């Protein structure tokens, strides 16, 4: 019972939302004491308190393949499927970094591609420090913007497969998204020059390999 999805939850991408986390990872979560003691029957409101107490993010760690508390709360969110407004409140939370990251991670899993870009990209300006629990159980220093960048660019993160989202350029071409204005652009005058030279260099390397260079 405790591990069942809320019967009122809508299916995400045609399946039970819990399936977004692989079975093998999910079983690790179900086995955690934290899951059994703290996550039993919590509502979205009570879950905020748990998220406030988070001290790191991460996926599976240690010799016994334990799941982080971050992963436990992610699965709980998948189970209870809070309303979009609540998730957005998580993301907008300025005071607690880990609440923000939990919301961002969850939205990346269940959100529409346009929403993923719309609500996660602003977090790229948040350079606060956070801890990431690595595979060997150690804590590593990372930043909110790096975490979010991983969400936007990687296929797999924190041992969860991230659903595919189209490239930003594709959504822009379809008129679904406005071009992103980086907070950096007001700051650096010779930004344009530097970007262009970087593009030329990268393309140049590729063209060497190509037939009609």
């Amino acid at each position, binding site marked *: 019972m405790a591990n069942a999805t809320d019967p009122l939850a809508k299916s995400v991408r045609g399946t039970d939302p819990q399936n977004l986390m692989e079975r093998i990872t999910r079983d690790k979560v179900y086995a955690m004491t934290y899951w059994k003691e703290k996550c039993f029957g919590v509502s979205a409101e009570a879950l905020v308190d748990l998220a406030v107490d988070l001290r790191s993010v991460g996926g599976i760690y240690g010799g016994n393949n334990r799941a982080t508390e971050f992963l436990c709360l992610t699965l709980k969110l998948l189970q209870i499927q809070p309303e979009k407004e609540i998730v957005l409140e998580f993301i907008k939370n300025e005071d607690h970094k880990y609440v923000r990251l939990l919301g961002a991670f969850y939205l990346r899993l269940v959100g529409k591609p346009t929403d993923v870009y719309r609500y996660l990209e602003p977090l790229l300006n948040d*350079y606060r420090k956070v*801890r990431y629990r690595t595979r060997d159980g150690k804590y590593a220093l990372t930043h909110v913007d790096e975490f979010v960048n991983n969400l936007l660019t990687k296929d797999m993160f924190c041992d969860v497969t991230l659903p595919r989202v189209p490239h930003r350029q594709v959504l822009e071409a379809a008129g679904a998204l406005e071009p992103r204005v980086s907070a950096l652009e007001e700051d650096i005058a010779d930004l344009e020059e530097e970007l262009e030279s970087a593009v030329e260099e990268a393309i140049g390397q590729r063209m060497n390999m190509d037939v009609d260079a």
Partner: protein
Amino acid sequence: QALDEMEPSDVDTDDELDDSIEFDNWKSRELERLKADRIQRELLFREREEQERLRAMTEEERDAYHAARLAKKEADEGKDRPKMA
């Protein structure tokens, strides 16, 4: 150090500490992201142009194009492969 002794406090995440350094680090990360985005855009653009060009070709031109590509590819692969003893 055993796993159970590992404390989150081992890693200091105090944001007050050295804000200006952190901000500079963020700037360089953001710059890398912008570069990656630009490069991807450029590649996408070139790919589309290539497709257009290919579509505009006649049958013979297209055959020649593919033959050239294939020859080039084989030549490249031959380079990397170690010579047989």
